[in-house]
């Protein structure tokens, strides 16, 4: 005699296998499943070819310990790390703070504000390489626009702006801020515009206007967005090559390199690609925590502004 429990018990593994198989197939049957695989394969292939492979290849190229010994012994690398930290700290924070203030300014009503905004975004809209080259020429000590203007207007001989490490690095940072502030201003402006009018109106009724309104209402609501933008900007800036290359050229005497430009120099000027990869790899201890924090913030940002 077979009892009910036994029947259930005998049938269970078969049901489990079927459930597992269906679950793995996403509930798709027969031809549907084949088509689904056919559609997914190109995406996986693209991901493997253009994301996974380059990352793994890069890690492999920079995997020798001797490369890092060579790198750390190089005085240019040491000054490059200092430059990178300064570039990130000043470039990102000054830019984001300015963007935060300016986004408030551009919230003002009026058609002229729209015109002003259009002019304001121009530095971001124009191609960056040509603008950075223009800045390089503008700052030329002998025939650059800036020194000629100083001489014509005030009979003052301007300095050779790009001949000193700190002035050249300052020029790079200012150029970056000038170029990218409009973009982040637009992002934060969009964030401000997404704050419901009711919240602002009720805060106003309660007397939270001006600075108090910003401190107690606007900024807390924008805080997550501001942090995400800051993290993203830091990651973008770590890989930035153009500002240094075209404004200071990494000079004078290789004193204004950042990790991205040093990596290119080592890879192609020294014809030592592994060393170049190793130089860029040393940014990973900073990039990985940034990405982790960014991912977490993006999750929380789903329920906040």
């Amino acid at each position, binding site marked *: 005699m077979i009892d009910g429990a036994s029947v259930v018990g005998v049938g269970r593994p078969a049901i489990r296998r079927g459930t597992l198989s269906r679950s793995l197939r996403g509930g798709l049957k027969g*031809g549907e499943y*084949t*088509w689904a695989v*056919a559609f997914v394969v190109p995406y996986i292939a693209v991901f493997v070819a253009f994301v996974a492979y380059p990352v793994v290849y890069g890690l492999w190229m920079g995997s020798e310990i001797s490369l890092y010994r060579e790198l750390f012994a190089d005085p240019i690398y040491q000054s490059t790390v200092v430059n990178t930290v300064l570039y990130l700290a000043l470039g990102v924070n000054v830019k984001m703070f300015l963007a935060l203030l300016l986004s408030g300014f551009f919230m003002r009503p009026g058609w002229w504000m729209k015109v002003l905004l259009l002019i304001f975004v121009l530095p971001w809209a124009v191609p960056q390489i040509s603008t950075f080259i223009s800045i390089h020429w503008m700052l*030329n*000590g*002998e*025939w650059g626009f800036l020194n000629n203007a100083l001489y014509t207007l005030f009979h003052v001989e301007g300095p*050779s702006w*790009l*001949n000193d490490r700190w002035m*050249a690095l300052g020029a790079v940072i200012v150029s970056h801020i000038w170029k990218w502030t409009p973009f982040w201003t637009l992002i934060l402006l969009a964030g401000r515009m997404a704050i419901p009018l009711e919240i602002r109106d009720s805060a106003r009724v309660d007397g939270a206007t001006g600075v108090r309104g910003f401190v107690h209402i606007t900024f807390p609501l924008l805080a997550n967005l501001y942090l995400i933008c800051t993290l993203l900007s830091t990651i973008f800036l770590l890989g930035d090559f153009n500002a240094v290359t075209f404004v*200071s*050229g*990494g*000079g*004078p*005497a*290789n004193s204004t390199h950042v990790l991205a430009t040093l990596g290119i120099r080592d*890879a*192609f*000027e*020294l*014809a030592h*690609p*592994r060393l170049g990869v190793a130089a860029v790899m040393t940014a990973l201890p900073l990039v990985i925590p940034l990405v982790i924090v960014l991912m977490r913030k993006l999750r929380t940002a789903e329920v906040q502004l």
Partner: protein
Amino acid sequence: MAHLSRRSVLRGSVALGAARLLAAPHIAKAAATTATVWFAQGFVQDEDVALRKAVADYEKASGNKIELSIIPFAPHRQKVVSAITSGVVPDMTMSNPNEILQLFAWQDKWLEVSDVVETQQAQFSETALLAAQAYNSVTKKRGFYGVPLRAAVVPCHIWGSLVEKAGLRTEDIPKTWDAYFDFFKKVQDNLRKQGERKVYGLGFQVTANGVDPANLFNAFLIAYGGQDIVTKDGKLHLDDPKVRQAAIKAAGYLGGAYRDGYVPPSAINWNDADDNNAFHAKLMVMDVDGTLSTEVAVKDKHPEWYYKDIVTQGIGYPSDNAGKPVPSIVGVTQGLIPKGAKNVTVAKEFLKYFIQPKVIGEFIELGLGRWLPVMPSLAKSAFWQNPKDPHLRGYIQQGLLGPTRPDYYVFNPAMAEVYSEHVWSMAMIDVAKEGVKPEAAIEKAFKRIEEIFAKYKIA
């Protein structure tokens, strides 16, 4: 509309596969007669036109196909380094920079091409033949890994009009080394007295960018007697007092000229094109810069500059301070075949065709003479001996017919690393900007050079 079933898709795929198999022999046949060739873009468009013509002529004559890529200068260099590193290589490339031949021959990355060089061996200059060789640290042998194509030398470019404006004459420029360069300091002093606010006597590239500063320093090093810093056996001779003294004098003169205000302040951060631009802007009276690009670049737009105002002296370098001739270092562009190239046969055939005197001579002349031939017989052509041209005869005299020598990296690739690390530049800059004594600057430079050479031991 036909119904698309899984089977029909599979059938279609099988049919496509079969078609590909049938087509494969034709593709394979095409590949056997096709070679991929990479060249760096010319400084003037005529160079690229000349190259395309030479390639088209070869294709017509041979029936083979050349897949030619003309790539801008800097990306070409990056592409070559990337190709050699990854192993996905063209069938032939030109050297860019030239020392890439010795750097990668050291790692056994190029194919030996003595069979190609042999076809014109009697034609090549001795300097070109030396420059085509390199030491392979795997086989422990020196061999021909490059095929000489064209060359460049570092002439002095002078604004004759500025010299005259200073109340002096180009005919009066002294013929010995220090006096020659001191003359331009006097030109600057005179021009300043006339109220010229921004004219400098000397366009020395005391910078840590590009290839110019190493060329400049080497010219001074040789002129001061330090030519044996690296000998043909690849050995370094920093302990030779003559070499040390010459290096100290070179750093002292070049850095000192900057420190004393005879070189444009921005020179400390110039790249290879900046000195050309500054010269064209008449920021300095003279420039020591490789090739005739300074003159060729203005030939069309400012013919009066080319034919009248810019002087290249036509005598090569001045003599050394004792009156002996100073040999010019010649950089030779090479044709290279990477190991792993798929179609070596066509690449070699193309190179053999390309280095025939008639073909390579025409290629160089169509490029307006920015580059020099590497075969003395070509110097006799009407183009190079044109009496109406104020630059070409002097240029070919300096770079082909006069005393020349190959660069030091030919004997030991360590010197290429010395250049790309800008060791000489740092010595010049230490003197120019940091107030360091030349002796101390050279002591530091020598220490680094020794460290670099320790990585390149030649048996």
